């Protein structure tokens, strides 16, 4: 990971940062294996450069963005909470730019209602994508409603902790939507498509009763196998420094995003 310059962004959680060691060694990235340490251990041969992201679908100006073009967007550092659906959380200094800025470049059509994302498929570089056991159907896919995608909190991240993204964190470009569970933050993106209908999402397809399309952080709606009411903050000094804290609605970003879901039944649309 090379050093990456960014301005200080407006969004900065006032909580201690999760140590870089934990942010870069405790990951869910099944393309590199299902263990938390697998992505860091198995991603050394992954090549995030050169890279292209194809943006197409219901847009007036479909085009490809090279990595250099992505890095040319005004980059800022955003310190966000990250809440995993597995009831642990981190505080992470991302570097990136609003997804809205990229969408503006391609000019979505009036009929576009959703944004679909896809991760790269490279079985030679991603051991989780080859062999007898493959945990998920590839490519990993995620989606947002267009208004969620355009929300100023939603960023495409190209770096963390002042450097370009390590492979295990989704190099070279990934999505960060801080009020949703971490699995919405699709990594190593190669395609972004604007669609009229809700796009298929990997975890939602895999276990629809466990992972919804919205996946907004919500302490009131439990995962069938565990409570979402509380979370463990990772990396606060071993067994006794870690603390279990209450999970906040929309991961603490309710003020900014609750209005997106006005009138919706969040229990049905989990």
């Amino acid at each position, binding site marked *: 990971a090379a050093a990456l310059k960014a301005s200080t962004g407006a969004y900065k959680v006032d909580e201690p940062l999760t140590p870089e*060691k*934990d942010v870069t*060694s*405790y990951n869910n990235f*099944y393309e590199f294996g*299902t263990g*938390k*340490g697998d992505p860091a251990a198995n991603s050394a041969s992954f090549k995030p450069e050169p890279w292209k992201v194809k943006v197409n679908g219901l847009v007036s100006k479909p085009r490809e963005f090279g990595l250099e073009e992505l890095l040319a967007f005004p980059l800022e550092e955003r310190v966000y909470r990250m809440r995993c659906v*597995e009831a*642990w959380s981190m505080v992470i200094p991302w570097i990136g730019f609003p997804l809205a800025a990229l969408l503006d470049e391609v000019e979505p059509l009036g009929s576009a209602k959703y944004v679909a994302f896809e991760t790269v498929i490279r079985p030679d570089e991603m051991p989780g994508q080859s062999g*007898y*056991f493959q*945990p*998920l159907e590839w490519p990993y896919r995620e989606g947002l409603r267009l208004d969620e995608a355009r929300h100023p909190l939603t960023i495409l991240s190209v770096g963390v902790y002042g450097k370009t993204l390590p492979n295990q964190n989704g190099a070279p470009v990934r999505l960060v939507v801080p009020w949703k569970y971490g699995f919405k933050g699709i990594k190593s993106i190669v395609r972004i498509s604007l669609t009229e209908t809700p796009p298929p999402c990997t975890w939602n397809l*895999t*276990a629809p009763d466990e992972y919804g399309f919205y996946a907004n952080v919500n302490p009131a709606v439990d995962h*069938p*196998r*565990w*409570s979402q*009411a*509380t979370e*463990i903050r*990772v*990396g606060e*000094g*071993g*067994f*006794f*420094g*870690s*603390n*279990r804290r209450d999970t906040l609605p929309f991961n603490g970003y309710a003020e900014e995003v609750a209005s997106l879901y006005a009138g919706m039944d969040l229990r049905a649309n989990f």
Partner: protein
Amino acid sequence: MALVPTLPKHLHGPSIWALYALGFVPAASAFYLGATGQLPGNAIKEFEHLLGLWALRFLIATLTITPVRDLFGVNWIRYRRALGLLAFYYVLMHFLAYMLLDQMLRFPAILADIARRPFITIGMAALVLLIPLALTSNNWSIRRLGPRWNKLHKLVYVIAAAGALHFAMSVKVVGPEPMLYIALVTLLLSWRTVRTRFLRWKRQRSAIARPIPATEKAAG
């Protein structure tokens, strides 16, 4: 059929104590690493999962003693109690890690988990069923209970199945690791269903292969 050298008798006792000592190494080393902040990421969950995994390994080891004796004639029965008790201690530590470190004694949440989440209900049932087995894992109980002891300790089959199921149900995607444990437990439990027939066949076969000569019998 001696596949492994026989241990001298005076080492039987010490070898059992060595097994106990060795058996606690994974828990002790993980506890040290976790308590000193050296387990990466979600240290508490890593510790909790490690304890659960070792519990399952010791349960499987316990169930392996009989088939190893049946098939290879190696009698390690003197280690079975230690393996079974190690399994119990690991299940207990697994639960304590969950209750104390993970849930930090939030009892409403713990009770809700046990009541509402099938994989936790199953895991809890396995722990409860292990208690009478652990309490009767001593010579006094074996003498006292007689044939009922054997019957009681058949509960370990249910416990091992529950443990493997608990593991498989707890993961997001059932990958090779939980599948392996399910397969091993299935294999070991299946052995019990064919065991009597196998032993009869083995006896008959050896009787045919080595008929005892009448003269030798008389001489003996």
